[in-house]
């Protein structure tokens, strides 16, 4: 099947514009980019279904004249879901605005904190730093309840069995 020039150009243009907006920090622009990407993707899906045909409705067209119904079914739900997601992101924008009077995706402070953490911060689990009763039983022969006397230091009574 021969592709058209119009559709790939159109799809590429919509994708480019969508990606540019998606990489913005303003949530509104991100959402607009998302919508453009949605439109572009729907067109891409539709164009993979083949050249244009008649509406896939029996009685209106014969099966071999029809456009491919499968991408259409996929796109149809995608359109409605895009609306659901749009509404959700808009609610997020509203929430963000109400809380902090801004609608930007700022830098994630928690991520920055993790990145700034030095490796040794992870050593909270070091058994040597724990209270002796919390150390594992076999750990360097430390014995529960006897922090000052490891088992090797036990002074056993000299007498034999009685």
């Amino acid at each position, binding site marked *: 099947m021969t592709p058209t020039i119009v559709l790939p150009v159109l799809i590429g243009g919509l994708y480019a514009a969508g990606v540019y907006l998606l*990489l913005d920090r303003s949530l509104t622009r991100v959402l607009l980019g998302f919508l453009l990407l949605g439109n572009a993707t729907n067109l891409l899906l539709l164009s*993979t279904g083949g050249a244009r045909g008649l509406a896939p409705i029996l009685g209106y067209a014969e099966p071999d004249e029809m456009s491919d119904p499968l991408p259409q079914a996929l796109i149809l739900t995608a359109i409605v879901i895009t609306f659901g997601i749009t*509404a959700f992101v808009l609610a997020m*924008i509203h929430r963000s605005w109400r809380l902090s009077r801004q609608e930007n995706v700022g830098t994630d402070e928690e991520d920055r904190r993790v990145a700034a953490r030095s490796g040794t911060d992870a050593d909270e689990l070091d*058994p040597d730093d724990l209270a002796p009763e919390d150390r594992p039983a076999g750990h360097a022969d430390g*014995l529960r309840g006897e922090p000052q006397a490891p088992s090797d230091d036990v002074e056993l009574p000299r007498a034999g069995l009685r």
Partner: protein
Amino acid sequence: MTALLLLHLLAAVLAPLLVRWWGRAAFGVLALVPAAAFAWLVGRLGTVTGGGEVRETTSWVPSLDLTLSFRLDALSLTLAALVTGVGALVLLYCTRYVEPGAEGTGRLAGNLTGFAGAMLGLVVADDLLLLYVFWELTTVLSFLLIGGNGSRLAARRAASQALVLTTSGGLAMFAGLLLLGNASGTWLLSELVADPGTGPAVTAGTLLVLAGAVTKSALVPFHFWLPAAMEAPTPVSAYLHAAAMVKAGVYLVARLAPGLSDVPGWRPLLLGLGLATMLVGGWRALRQTDLKLLLAFGTVSQLGFLLVLVGAGSRELAAAGLAMTVAHALFKSTLFLSVGVVDHATGTRDLRRLSGLGRQLPVLATAATLAAASMAGLPPLLGFVGKEAAFTALWEGGLPDRTAAALELAGLVLGSVLTAAYSARFLWGAFARKPGVEPVADLHRPGPLLLTAPVLLALTGLAAGPLSPQLDELVTRYADTLPLRAPEAEHLGLWHGWQPALALSAVSLLGGLALFAVRGPFGRLQQRLAVGSSADEGYWNVVQGLDRLAVAVTGTTQRGSLPAYLGTILVVVLALPGTVLLTRAPWPDEWRAWDTPVQALVGAVVVIAAVLALRIRQRLSAVLVVGVTGYGVAVLFALQGAPDLALTQFLVETLTLVTFVLVLRKLPKDIAERHRPRERAARGVIAVAVGALMGAVGAVALAARTATPVSTGFPAEAYRYGGGQNVVNVTLVDIRAWDTIGEISLLVVAATGVASLVFLRRRPGGVERADAGRLAGSAARRGRRAPRRRWLSASATLDPLRRSVVLEVITRLLFHPILVFSVFLLFSGHNEPGGGFAGGLVAGLALVLRYLAGGRYELGEAARVDPGLLLGAGLLIAGGTGVAGLLAGGDVLQSAIWRGTFPVLGEVKLVTSLFFDVGVYLIVVGLVLDVLRSLGAELDRQEEQDAADGDDDTGDETDHDTDDDTDHDDRTDDDATAPAEVSAR
């Protein structure tokens, strides 16, 4: 066997309930379950010693070759009898060991019973994967039992350590089982052992399986989890960490040895690690002062011994190994339970504080002495029989390599010396009178029931020695599956005449006693030789290293910037699929300019609008130009021959615009530019590259197709099975209905998300309706007379300045026709453009009209129902249709077609998928209503509230919301008559 396992499962599930009813006495009832299994096993003894076996097979997942297949042969029977017998006695012991009314008793009972079942399943499973399932079940239950109620740090750490070690071994084993199963072509353990095949896959698989056995049975260098696991209550230690779970590795090695012991690496690994473990465990046991830890290290030592015996792969050592396994389970559980009694009676397990307990608790001391004597290898106990058989076998050969046999023998004798020494140390530590140590003053004397289990187990060990010829019948059944290396087969028995093995036994015993006698100097020697580090430290260092690595990786990759993340993803898209596209994709040979010139025209408009969207910083204008692209795409859909898509896209685009306006009215007019020019340039480059890539994908996708589309048959199927002429609609509600179920569920989630982001805590159950008081009040407040006749019932609540009579009239006239049209779309959608999605969107638009014309109370008047109710009902109807297909005798979501003639209507054809579409319709209406109620009505209300509260709107959000909630409560009470009181969520 299946029934017995189910019985265990049932008991485990009921255990917490039983404990709640009867307290700790419930353990007695639970003990009956493994006891019943034990009785059943004893009943099969004749069959098995006669050379038969019991098999049960139930199909489980045939497509994955998974079967519930169980097999009881001599080896399984021996282990299963141990597991169930000791299990029953340990549960009985718990009836007195557990403090009455102690917290977590129900959990302990359930886990312990469940563990007994899992362990039984493990030793009788014949399917490789089933074996693995039981294997990991025991691991998880062990984790739960060690961890207890999770309140103590040491217990949590021990539990997680045991879990990490045994599951990592278990995962290796799983991979090994898969390799073995694939290489040998069978998933049955019995067939695998009979014919394992050869080759690198079998070798690798075997070694991986051994990794599982080695970790589970606590061999060096993974031995340290076992002493740490002594954090568990003593009955748990006695059962899991002496008699049952750690024997899983022994069982597995014994099970596989007949087929796989000649695999390269098998003997060096097991014989080497086993011997090292025996010596390390014995050495460490002699340094312990906690009786339980002493036993734990003793167990480590004995497990090493057992794995040497069963891993050797010769008939005589295997027989010795199995006998020793039985002996070990008996004496070690006795000893652990005895320690439990000592702990219970005195409150300590420290041998430096115990003194003179032998006189005070003579029965216990006798039982423990019998068990310790068996451990040391003293005749006439079973431990002596087993050890003697092992020495004999190695003396006579027993291994393919004589030098190895000699070395092993020397090692085992040395290990036995240590064993005898720590056995003596245990007895002395627990029961002897020690000068300078006061006997425990107030002894908490154990009752007879607490002593039953250790005494019974000790007596069994005593009786089994003289009765070992009977045990030999069972053991030989298993051992005969292995090749004999010695000149002739020895049988288990107390007396074999004056033989070298007897001398070796004597050497072990006397050496042990001598070592014990010089324990003072020996202790100091051990202290001097003590190494500064331990395997446990190594483990924690590895864990910490992982932690550090995780922090480093997270810190490097998670920089906290969304554009950076998205940019990275897009660059990868360019790099990987982009490269493939450039190098491999078949470029089309010829091109057409367009399908129709109109397509080019609309396309140009769309591209221009998209470019404008980049440049416009004004919020609403940007939304509008993006809307233009959407409408343009709808036209393209229509041109392409997709009327359903065009219709849906038009409707959704309109709704999207309205939603945007609802939210953006609260935001500043312009979007500030926050990006540096360099960032913008980078974005531009990525954007253009991705655009080019996707355009190219669009161009080559058609030419790249190699298979016939799956949808070629859709039109015919749609009519024949789906009963509809609109192929797209039938695809949605019938052919691909599963997809649609997922998609409408997503809509429900999105709607719920919107509502929860706006209403925060909960949404008010009632619907905000305009009541007479509010209408009158609002009119009075504004000092105007309410119009006598209103076009919309609640429009009077609006500020007169915001009212538009024209809009109200139009709404009044159009609302009901639009609704009727939406229902028409819904019903005709099966045969013509339309359907649940389009119909729902049209109905949603009607609601939008009412809201825009009459405000939020008008919305309440228009839709007197909670959107959650609509969403829930829609999902229920759509899902219910699926079940209906099942009930009608078809598949889930299969359509049924009914035809009937009705008066007036004439012939009616009814397809069940119509109801599915009704569900879709309701969900879409619910979604739109939710959006309007949240982003429309609730935002209006918040605005009014903010205005009423004054100008401190940026202040404390929480306070506002609390006020809001009370406000809602009042309102809900006022509206008690509203039909949709119920909140569906």
